[in-house]
């Protein structure tokens, strides 16, 4: 008799627990809808040079092309998820000569597929500050994705030759901001 009684209690308790336990409607398939849009920014290049460094350019000419590998644009993550990139350039000049700052994008065959030209004026008593932004979006982001190397060069414009005692410096800073859409 007693056994039957407490078996009943146990059954009822279990039943009550089960009856009251329920769960809101959950949808684990939502994981497939996940997307993130992280934006990463980093330095792209930095050059600084004093005026005497350009002595060899004489009255004008091309100074050193500086080549950088950027084959990280070729990784599968970049190819799949990069949707936009801003390249930002900031140039300061206190040398009394104007010049063009050129950035050339080379593909796998070292063929140029994009060139950026930034004209910087000669120093005239006030530091020249030149800022430039190039945006690659859906229409031309493939240029970046196909870029294997970047060539940074300076073409000094004609003018009074620089000497070992010429004053001033140039500073070229740049950054890269990459926008991703990760699905």
């Amino acid at each position, binding site marked *: 008799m007693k056994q039957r009684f407490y078996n009943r209690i146990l059954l009822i308790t279990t039943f009550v627990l089960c009856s009251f336990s329920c*769960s809101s409607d*959950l949808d684990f398939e939502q994981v497939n809808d996940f997307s993130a849009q992280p934006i990463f920014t980093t330095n792209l290049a930095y050059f600084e040079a004093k005026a005497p460094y350009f002595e060899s350019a004489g009255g004008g000419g091309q100074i050193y092309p500086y080549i950088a590998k950027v084959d990280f644009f070729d990784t599968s993550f970049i190819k799949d998820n990069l949707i936009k990139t801003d390249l930002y350039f900031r140039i300061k000049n206190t040398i009394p000569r104007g010049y063009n700052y050129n950035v050339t994008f080379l593909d796998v065959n070292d063929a140029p597929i994009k060139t950026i030209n930034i004209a910087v004026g000669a120093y005239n008593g006030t530091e020249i500050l030149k800022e430039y932004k190039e945006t690659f979006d859906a229409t031309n982001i493939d240029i970046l994705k196909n870029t294997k190397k970047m060539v940074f060069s300076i073409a000094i414009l004609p003018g009074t030759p620089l000497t070992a005692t010429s004053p001033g410096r140039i500073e070229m800073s740049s*950054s890269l901001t990459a926008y991703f859409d990760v699905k």
Partner: protein
Amino acid sequence: MRKITILLCLTISFYCSSQNKEILYNFTPQPQSLLLNPGADVKYKWFFGVPLLSGISANVGSTGFDAYSLFANDGVDFSIKVKNLIASTNRKDYITANQQLEVFTGGFRVGGEQSKSYVSFGMYQELDSFIYFPTDLAILALYGNKDYIGKSFNLGDLSVKAELLSVFHVGFNKQINEKLILGIRGKIYSSIFNATSTHNSGYFVTKNGANLIYDQSINSNLELNTSGGAKYLDKNYDGDLASDLKNDLPQKAFLGGNLGLGIDLGLTYYPERNIQVTASLVDLGYISHTKDVVDYTFKGKYNFEGVSEFNSDGTIDDAYQDFKDAIPLDTLYHKYTTQRPLKFYSSFQYSFEEERQTECNCETDEDSWYRSAVGAQLFAMTTPRAPMLALTAYYRRRILQGLQMKATYTIDSYSFTNVGLGLTTKIGVFNFYAMADNLLAYSDVSKANALTFQIGFNIISGGSRK
């Protein structure tokens, strides 16, 4: 990237729990309570558990969020829910998982009819994991660094460990005198799989620079140790996972894995007949991982300056390669040691409603017992950072002969509204028990921060009424 983000942010919702078994602790009609205190006041002539059914327990829970906040079918964009989750949690939030399955267990009284010495033994399988919410890494993965100029992302937020192991144990429990019972349990651990990444440090920071656009640097000291999974982690592995696991698991479970040793210690003390104090240390032990070990490290320092040298010598600058050289992702094969999570339990109990035996009952040697008791318990467990703590108040009552209950109220880092209930029944020699906590959350389990249940079947000869 997506997999990493999902791993960092979401899997946590499945792997969560507390290891506190507050209902089973000191619930002495159950011989399984000896696994939480080898010095528990448990009485039996002999017992054995129904193989694979004597002890099944699982805990799920998490601090900071619940399954509903992520997976509710409410039309809200899932990505927004993930962002809300990251905004509402911090690096102190964690998710732990613990599941145990008794493969076999048994025990017997030693030293004759009048003896109060008991041996118990068994084997159980355990899954154990502890994951701190990697807040800074999740922010970095989800938002990037552009809007976090000046913030130092803490790489030490990554703190993860997971282990699948089997445990063989033998315990000895002896009543020293009327007031004191002592117990000890020796354990051999056989680790089937282990992954530990708990001693990480470092930072990634981007600040506005003076000359460079940014002063950006990373100082990384990340390490992941694994054992038992080398074959499966090999990128050239192309075997059949299901059949390989089927072959590997039993062999590793039965002392073929990485081995370790441990002990449990416990006592029960009665300063008065109706006042009881208990304390125990569980899993004071270690595992030495020497077989099937693979370690991954990501260590080094790097300043992100981009192309920064006039390489007029004609060499081609490769900042990306410089970065990979400075902080290489290395694969190593050196042994390591892990500590088992050490658990501490303690309780104070006051018993009342004394009952005396009116006729001879050969099933028990107790001449009196208390029908009811109230008490308090303290639980603490080591984690990779600060200890996990829980405080429990409880009420125990013998409802009928052979039917006992324990109701608990627990405050811990998961919840302030944790009410639990355990029932154990013994009909003849057949014993069944069921315990569940966080009962208030059963009205909608998806909103629960923690859930625990334990059930089991045993055959017990003799037994305690305390």
